[in-house]
Each structure stands twice: as C-alpha cells, then as structure tokens.
C-alpha cells in the first residue's frame, strides 16, 4: 500500500487511496448496472453524431465482457493506488483529459471503428503521467525500465495487431494503448513546461 507523503516523504503514514477506489467502484458499478457494452454508454460514432456526447467520456469506463472489466478495473485500482499520492487531483484531470483526447483520436483517426469501450487506452495515459510524477520523486531507473517494457509490449501489439494475452468479446484496439501513452507524454510535457514557466516567473519576480 503506498504511503501518504505529507510534508516529509520519508515519514509517510498508511492511507487508503480513496480516489482510485472511488473510480474503481464507479467502473464496477458501471459494469454491474449497465452490463457488457451497453449501447447507451459505449463510445458510439452513431450516438455521437446524434448528439450523445457523453459517450466521449463514458465509453472508456464501460467493458465488453467480464474478463475485459476484471483486468481493466484491477489495473485502474493498482495504477491509481500507486500514483495518486503524487498525482492527487491530477489523477482525475489526467483521466478526463485522456478520455476526451482519446475519443477525438478515435473519431478522426479510426474511421472504421463504429464503437469502442474499455479503460486500457486511458490507463496508458495514466501510466505515463504517473511514472513521470514518480520519477520526479524517486529517480529510480527501474521505474523507467518498466515504462520501457510497457512501451515495447504496446509496440508489439501494434505490430501484430492483436492483444497478446487477452481475448475479449470486442476485439482489441492496440493503437489505443500507444495513443494513450502519447497523450500521457503530451500532458507531461505541457505540465512540465507550465511548471518551468511558473518557476522562472517566480525567480524573475524575486526581489534582488
């Protein structure tokens, strides 16, 4: 269980990652109540053209079958728990941004895809933004190694056009994983640039 840092990272105390648990619970409830691939909630090109814009976000939180839901929601809870003490509210904003950007990518760059559901695309965004946040704190090479391994796995899936280990009812969209990572990278870069500008602004504003 990750530690809540407080003011001193080395004197943390055990605290529940409630933000991740809430998100996980919402995803579980979504599957339990709406069932597999509910037409009202999955990303649907036809529904979006009819003005049902909520599917731009909700689609990423729906799943096509139980296996799909179990793996994705487990990953959400693991990643969320791991990153939320660094990301805090950015956990929500990163995921929300990922939902919207991923949906626009699906609309404009995947014209063959009529419907989409599943968390894994936006989880790859979270992986990148979370690892960037972890790196800032720990600077441990093993963290970057894991990011590299995730990238290799996603590239392999992109190359073979198949999910390596999963066989869900809806076929996998390997591109979504890479795009999720790219969105994460973009968020990290914009955020670090913003922070750099802010910092240099502060330095410039310091008297003397």
């Amino acid at each position, binding site marked *: 269980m*990750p530690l809540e840092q407080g003011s001193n*990272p*080395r004197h943390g105390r055990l605290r529940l990652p409630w933000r991740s648990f809430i998100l996980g619970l919402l995803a579980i409830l979504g599957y339990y*109540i709406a*069932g597999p*691939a*509910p*037409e*009202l909630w999955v990303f*649907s*090109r*036809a*529904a979006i*053209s*009819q003005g049902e814009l909520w599917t731009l976000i909700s689609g*990423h939180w729906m*799943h*096509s079958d139980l296996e*799909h839901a179990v*793996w*994705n929601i*487990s*990953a959400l809870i*693991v*990643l969320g*728990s791991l990153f939320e003490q660094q990301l805090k509210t950015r956990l929500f904003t990163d995921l929300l941004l990922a939902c919207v950007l991923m949906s626009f990518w699906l609309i404009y760059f*995947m*014209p*063959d*895809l*009529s*419907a989409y*559901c*599943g*968390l*894994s695309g*936006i*989880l790859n965004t979270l*992986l990148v933004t979370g*690892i960037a946040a972890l790196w800032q704190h*720990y600077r*441990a090479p*093993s*963290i970057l190694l894991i990011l590299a391994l*995730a990238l290799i*796995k996603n590239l392999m899936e992109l190359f*073979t*056009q*198949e999910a*390596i*280990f*999963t066989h*869900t009812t*809806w*076929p*996998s*969209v390997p*591109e979504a*994983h890479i795009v*999720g990572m790219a969105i994460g990278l973009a968020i990290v870069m914009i955020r670090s640039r913003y922070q750099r500008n802010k910092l240099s602004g502060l330095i410039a504003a310091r008297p003397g």
Partner: protein
Amino acid sequence: MNNTTSFISRISRYMATALCMLSMQPVMAAGLLTPTNSNLPALEIRDHEVTVTIEDGYAITQVEQVFHNPHAQDLEARYSFPVPEHGSVAEMTLWIDGKAVTGEVLEKQQARKVYEEEKQAGRDAGLTEKDSFKTFEAMVSPVRAGKDTRVRIVYLQPAHIDTGIGRYVYPLEEGGVDDQKLAFWTANDKVTSKFNFNLKIKSAYPVDAVRVPNQGNATVKQHSAGEWNVHIGQQASQTTPTSKAQANPSDDVVATAMPASLNTVNTAHPLEGGSPAPAVNFNPQQGNAVYTLDKDLVVYWRHKPGLPGSVDLVTYKPDASKRGTFMMVVTPGADLKPINKGKDYIFVLDISGSMQRKFATLADGVQRTMKKMRADDRFRIVLFNNRASDLTPGYINATPDMIKHYSDKVAAIQPNSGTNLYQGLFNGLQQIDADRTSAIVLVTDGVANVGETHQRKFIELIKQKDIRLFTMIMGNSSNRPMLEAMTRESNGFAISISNSDDIVGQILKASSKVTHEALHGVKVDISGVKTADITPQKIGSLYRGQQLVVFGHYWGDGQATVKIDGKISGQDKSYQTRFNFPATTNENPEIERLWAYASIEDMMEEINNFGEKADIKQAIVGLGTEYGLVTDYTSMVVMRDEVFASRKIERSNKKRLAVEQAAQQQRQARPAPSRRVDTQQPMYKSPRPSFGGGGGAIDPWTLALFGLLAASVMLTTRRGRKNAA
C-alpha cells in the same frame, strides 16, 4: 371401474408409444428419394459438385450431380432438396447421349404431362417441380441399368449483407415439416464418389474475413481485397493460401485478410458462436460415402468495417431503345439511435414435432437472446404445439437468475404434436402492457397444421395490436412466405436460422435491430427517369444493418433523383441522392430473373392472403415461362432437342441461358467493379453499422508489470527510509 382405468391407461400407453415412434422417424435430407417399404431399388449419388458465385448482390448456385443405377433395370431418379431462401431454379440440364440439353419452363400440369409422356415412351426426360415453400424436386428418367446420368440444376437468389455480414446457405437439411412426405419417402443422402463445394465471393467492397462454421476441412483463400474462395471436398488446391486461415478438422474455418488490416475488427469474434450443431465434415473414410447431404453448408463473409452508407445500382439494358431492368441496393449508414427504455419481450416458441431437430438450436438461441436483455426488461414465454400455454406466470423481470431458470426450463422441453401457430400468437398477444414497449419474438418453422392455418387470419390477428413481431425462421422448408408476410405487416423483421448457423451471430443481428430505432413505412420515389414494376410493392420497415433491395424496370437513361422516406420514432425522415441510369448495360442479365421472381413472390403473397385468383395465377405462369423460373405454378422440363421441336416448345430459356453464360464468362475475367452510384451525392453521412466495436484491454502481463512498478516504488521508498535513518 378398474378395468376401465386399466383400458384407458393401456390406450394412453399405446398412443404415447405411437407418438414416440412417429417422432423417431428419420428426418430426410437432400437426396434421392425412394418410396418407403417399396421393392424399388435405390439409386446412388455418385458425384455431387456445387459451384457458387456471389457477385453484385446475388448468388448463382450450380449443382451438378451424377446419378448411378447399379441395378439391372432402368429406373427413375427423384432428387429432392429444400427451397433455398428466395431462390428459384432457373436451369435444369441433362446430359443425353453425352450432350448437354437444357430445360424449358411450362405451366406445371403441362410440364408434368409432357414429362410423363416422355417417360412412358422410354425417352430421356427430366422435370423440376416446386413443392410450395418446402422443396424442389428434380426427376430424371430413365437412369439406364448399370449406367450414369449427369444432371445440372442452377438456381439464383439474392445475397445481401446484414450489419456488414453476408450469409450464404447451401440448404441440405430437410425441414421435416411434411409428415406425409416423411412417411412415404426415404432419402439416400450419401455421395459415393466425389463431393466438391466451391464458393467464390467477388465484391467491390473489401471483405476482411470469411467463415465456414462446422467445416474444419474447408479451405478459404483470399485473392484480392474483395475476392475470396471457399472449397470443401476432395480437390482442395494445395497452393499456399494468401489468407490467414485457422483449420481444425472438428471446428470452424475462419480466415481473415492478410496482412492484418489496420481496422480493429480483424478477428472473427463477431462471427463466432457456439452453434450446437455437430460438425459435418468431408470424410473420405465415411463408410462407402464421401459425403452425406444432411447438414446445411453455411458461409459468412464480413465487409471491412467503416464502409460508407451507400446506394448501389446493377442494371441490365442491352438495347438502349428498350426497357431495362435494375436492382438498387441501399445500405444505410448507422444513424438509427439505440433505444434505452426497458421493453417487454414475449417469446412465442414452437414446440411441435417438426421442431425436434431444431429445438436444441432454438433453446440455445432463446437463452442467448435472453442474456442480451437489460436489467429493466421483462419477458414472458408462450409455448405452442397442438395447444398454447404460458411457461411463465405473467411477466418476469430479466434478472440473471430468472433468465437461467426459464432458459433451463425451455431446454428441457421435448417437442411433439402438431403446430397451432395461431393459438400461440393469440396467447402471445394477450396481457400486453400499454405503458411499455412490447415485442413478440416468434421462433418457429411456421408450418401451421392445427387450428387456424389461413395466412390472412394470421395477418388480421397481428394487426389487432400495435406490436412488432420479430421472427426467427427455423430450418429449411419453413413457411417463410407466411412468416415474412406476417412480420412485415407488424413492421418487424425476420431472420433465418439454420442448424449449421452461428447462433450467436444471428442473435447479435437480431438484438442489434431490436435495441435500435427503425425506419418505418419506407417509401422509395424515383424521379427523372421513367420506372415501373417496382418490387417489393410494400417495403415495410428498415432495421439497423438491413439493406433495402428494390427491383424494377426503367426506360431511357439519365440522371434520376432517388428519395427514401419513412418515419423514425414518429418523426419524418428523408434521404436523397442523384445518380445516372445507364443507356445500355449487358453485364448482369440474371437480374431480369431476379426481378421476375421478386414479382412472383409479391403475387404469391396476394394468393396466400386472399386465395387463388385466376388472373394472378396466369400472371405467375406468364412470368415463370417468360423468365424460365420454376414456381408454384410452373415447372421445368428437359427433353431431347428434337422433341422440344416436335412439341413446338419455344427454346426461350436456352437463349436466355446462353446470354447469361456469356455474361458470366465476361465477369469471371475481370475484378468485381464498383456498383456504387451515390459517390457524388452520398445518401448517408455516417458509415454503415457493424458489430465492429473495439475494446482497450489490459492483460495479466501488463498487470504484472504494474505490480513490478509498485514493488520498485516500495523498494525505493524503503531504501530512502533506511538512508534517512
């Protein structure tokens, strides 16, 4: 009193035994018929070779057979096969003295008389008749003692796409709906020497997967984006397939386009399913038979997802100054919204004796359909054979427990007795809750033989309530004309299910229709070019994924405006495009026959509704003979050329076949051309609907990676603490 009780008990036992024995009669397949319990020796099907070409929205099926007579006397061969969906026999060819002689279509009685006369005279003759909606029967006389007779039958049928997936069925499994026929004939369905099934798909739209369920030995090859070949039988080509095919002898064959397409629906999931039908494999070791003609062969092909909604036009007009024929295929875009309200589903299930072989498929289908229900849906189940009764006490909430409970109950039913379809529907129409949207899911082979059986009465019954009827037509030889007419009247839709089908695929099609809005009261208006004889006369509704196919005649050429009007949820909806009708075309002469048969089907519906009328019957005979089609009122007869001449029978079908064969040769030599005509002014903005959902999936490997990340963070934290200490 005791004696009476004992007597009744004995009689009941005898009746039960008799019913049981009836139900155990072997169900016939396609094959050579011999009267049951007769001393007539059986003939042999030596070769059975099927060639199917699917192109431009229709399928041409050519079945060439060699019948062998191993006996010392000349015999008549009588080959029976189920009526293919909307299929009509257009050619019967006999090899007489080594020369192929094609048949001509005459009025049914006349054709029978001519055939019998030739048969009595000992001269070579053949006859193909249609036995209403059940079977086609081809008779050949004589098959000489110790000799072979070669015969070819060709039929045409539309081959359309539903939700991006095409489906072709080579019907072999007899529906078991005709008790008298079952009692009188036995069928020899064994092919003893050579069996081949070759199917070619030629599509201008890219096809990204082809699937042959339950045929592990099928070979599927891709030649180009839209051209695929399927082969089952002895002479499989050994060349390296250009497709990625999975072939497990006891399973299905699925081939996907290579290289793997960048679209995300490049696996066969939407086509896969758990049909309970056993595998029907080509098996050279199967006793003295190389193949048994007792299971349908089903082939699916899937268009690349994301193709645009479109209008395709196929025309035939060899002479610019004369009338032309057109087939317009409208493939709507995905603009029908999902329905999100809870619904009431009333399952009306046929548990009559004719459903015995289909019941496992039915039970599986019902279970899968019920599993697709939403939590706020409700269901009722009505069963019917001689009588109708409710299996459920009123409406049941579609909870997983209740769905399991009632699908188990349905699966445990033993079908028997007759078919009181009217009573079943009548019961289904009761207890409709006016505050909720309701739909009847009728699963039957539709052969009503108890109680009310007149089609008109069924239509009057269904019109009493504003309720959609969704009909699953089970097996071959089903009363498809009546079921389709009834369904159309209710603005519902009908889906055919073979025992060899992927049930899950058919259920997916059905459920995607039920859960989406539909375009009702569809009307087509063509202006700018003179058109007439449009068929179907009444279109009804267009559901998600369905294509609209309209046949008709046109005169002249030039730009036409085509408008499709209808209502979606009570709101007017209109689609429009403009395109050219060509002055001359000669590539697709077959569409003349397809138009004629579609018109005949419209007329047959009139007869089935209101009884036989002389003028309509005459019109059917006229169309049948002019276009060389075997119908309920016309048959095809084959004799030596000189006998045709001596009987003054015009060889119009021979001329038509020559034109068609020349066109087929031309088409064979070139890739499938695009028939899309609305590219300049597309009728639809959105792409076609498909089952093509994609999903982002995390797998155990990635999750393990995340675990590793967590461990690494914890280790780093601990090390940090140690250092700090």
